[in-house]
Structures are given as structure tokens and as C-alpha cells.
């Protein structure tokens, strides 16, 4: 009864101090955990973002076709993608037998070839990509990527002809 009646005596301070002490909680482990989770979720979300590369294919040729646009043979370069990351390329010249070459996907390989052709022909350069059935999907993406890097916008993905396969076989037969 006496405690209720007293207005604000000095004898109360002892009780208050003991209550204040109990409110302090050590938050360090909680914050550690929070930051750990933040780091995890940050990394997990950024890794999931995926990039896309646009690819447009020509429509299938049927009866009511408009004539396909004609290009000058010497403005075109044909790349044949073979197995084991090999690239074969040739340019049909106005006269004479086309030279058949073999190269690879490195900086000094196909990129130099493309840049050289681009310098010679200019923006009219057309690239015909012919992946062989045993080339990898990665090769196709790599070559389109290489075209994007060298700034060549005109390309088409075509099917290999028997003639191309023979050329590749001949090339492989000559330097095994």
C-alpha cells in the first residue's frame, strides 16, 4: 500500500536500474547472420540473369517465293563449322578455283579472317555459315558472336552441301 501512495521517492531508483539492464541484448550474431544471408541472396540473384542473342532465320522456301536476293559471289565468305572446333572457309572468286582454308575460333584465327574480308569488301560482306551436323551448338553461337564482335550484320545459317563435305574431307586427308 505504501508504494502506491508515494509520489516519487528516491527509494524507487534501485528497482528501475535492474529493469533497464535486462533490455540490453547482444545483437552481433543476429546481424552477422543477416549479412551472411544478404550476401547469399545477392549473389544468387545476380547469377541468374541471363543474356540473349537474337537470331533471325529466313522463312522456308515454298512455291510462292519471292526470288532470293542475289549477292556478288566475291562479296560472300563461306564458313564451314566442322567437328573438334574447326572452321573451314573459302571465298568464291570471279575466276579460278576457290581457296579452301582451315582455321580455329581463336583471336588470331577466324576473327582476323573476318576482319580482313571486311576491310576488303566493306559493309557488303555476306557471311554464309554452314555448320556440319557433328559440329557443336557452341560453335554456332561462337561464330555468331564473332560476327557481332567484328561488326558484320549480314549472315545466314545454311545447310552444308555434299560439295562442302567433300572439300572438308579432302582438306583433312591432306593434312591429317
Amino acid at each position, binding site marked *: 500500500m505504501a508504494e502506491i501512495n508515494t509520489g516519487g521517492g528516491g527509494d524507487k531508483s534501485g528497482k528501475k536500474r535492474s529493469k533497464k539492464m535486462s533490455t540490453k541484448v547482444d*545483437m552481433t550474431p*543476429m*546481424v552477422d547472420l*543477416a*549479412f551472411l*544471408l*544478404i550476401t547469399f*541472396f*545477392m549473389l*544468387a*540473384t545476380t547469377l*541468374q*540473369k*541471363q*543474356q*540473349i*542473342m*537474337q*537470331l*533471325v*532465320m*529466313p*522463312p*522456308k522456301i515454298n512455291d510462292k517465293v519471292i526470288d532470293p536476293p542475289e549477292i556478288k559471289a566475291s562479296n560472300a565468305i563461306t564458313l564451314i*563449322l566442322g567437328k573438334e572446333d574447326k572452321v573451314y572457309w573459302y571465298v568464291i572468286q570471279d575466276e579460278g578455283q576457290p581457296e579452301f582454308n582451315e582455321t580455329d575460333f581463336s*583471336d588470331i584465327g577466324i576473327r582476323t579472317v573476318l576482319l580482313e574480308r571486311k576491310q576488303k569488301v566493306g559493309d557488303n560482306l555476306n557471311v554464309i555459315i554452314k*555448320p*556440319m*551436323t*557433328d*559440329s*557443336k*551448338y*557452341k*560453335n*554456332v*553461337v*561462337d561464330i*555468331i*558472336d564473332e560476327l*557481332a*564482335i*567484328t561488326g558484320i550484320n549480314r549472315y545466314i545459317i545454311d*545447310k552444308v552441301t555434299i560439295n562442302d563435305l567433300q572439300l572438308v574431307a579432302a582438306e583433312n586427308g591432306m593434312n591429317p
Partner: protein
Amino acid sequence: MTAMCDMAFLLLTFFILTAKMKTPEPASFDVPSSVATMKLPEKDVIRLSISDQGGVFFTIGDQGLRRQIIDVYSKTYRMPLSDKQKLEYELMETWGMPSSDLPIYLSMSDTKKKNYKQKGIPVDSTNNELQRWVAVAKSINPDLRVAIKGDKDANYEHFQKVIDAMRDMNLLHFSLITNLETKPSNL
């Protein structure tokens, strides 16, 4: 301390809410890298994945759309499915198997499903089920775009089959999913 703690939890909540849980996929698709920087849109995408074995898998991100697809498909191609099987399909984001195996797979238990090896959707000229599924999806939502997620080591012929199937349907625009690679600086 309190302020930092508040910040930490705010960020944590943000990242938890924005994070999308990665659903387990029936096969692994290790995509090639390119310098392309365009982002894959989250909506209106049909994803066709090609595994290194050449199996073709079909992914629709939107659950509501998956429900509509299975409804239309089972009606059009006379594949009787119970409501429970349809619900199972609805929960499946990525799958790939011939549609003759689909009803059996949908009534399997979860542990059996895990052990079942999905072979991929047939894309042969005689039995082109991929075209059917894409046609059904396109008929429900004509805005759908085709994205292709191919494994690095998938043979080109599998990719060509998928592309040819889409070209037959007059779908000519593709988005190839790739990882980001830095552009060489010497050009």
C-alpha cells in the same frame, strides 16, 4: 548498431522477395557464352532447352498458361487426363518426354519421378510433338517468343531440328540464351 541492423534486414527482405527459387531441371544445360547483353524477358517466353544428349525440353514459366496448355492439348490430341494429372502438369516448369509417356509420368510419386530419366520431346519429321506443343501454346498466347537454351556440347543437328520445326510454323525469331562474356577490348 540498431540502424545498421535495420538496414541489413531491409536489404535481406528485399533480396528474399526478389529472388526466384531455382526449380530443379530434368537435365543440365550448360549454355555457351557470348558478348550479347540483351536480357531475357521474363514474360511471354517459351523456352526450348537442348541437353547435351540432344533431348528437347519445354519450359513455360507461367503456371496459369501451363494449365491452359494442358487443357487444350489433352482436348485437341485426345489425351485423357484426370484433374490430378493436370495439376501435376501445372506444377512442372520444365519437362521433356514423348506425350505417350506423359500420363504415366504425371501419376507417378515424387520419388519415382526423380528416378525417371526424361528423354526429350520428339522432333522427328514423322512425329513432331514439339510443333504441337508450341502450336498449342501460341494459340493461347500469340505473343509468346521462342528462346532456345542449348547445351554447349549439344550437336548442331539437334539444334537444326528444333530450328527447322519452328521455321515450318513460320516462327523465325529466336533468342539464344547465353552467358555474358566480356567483349575483347582491342577492337
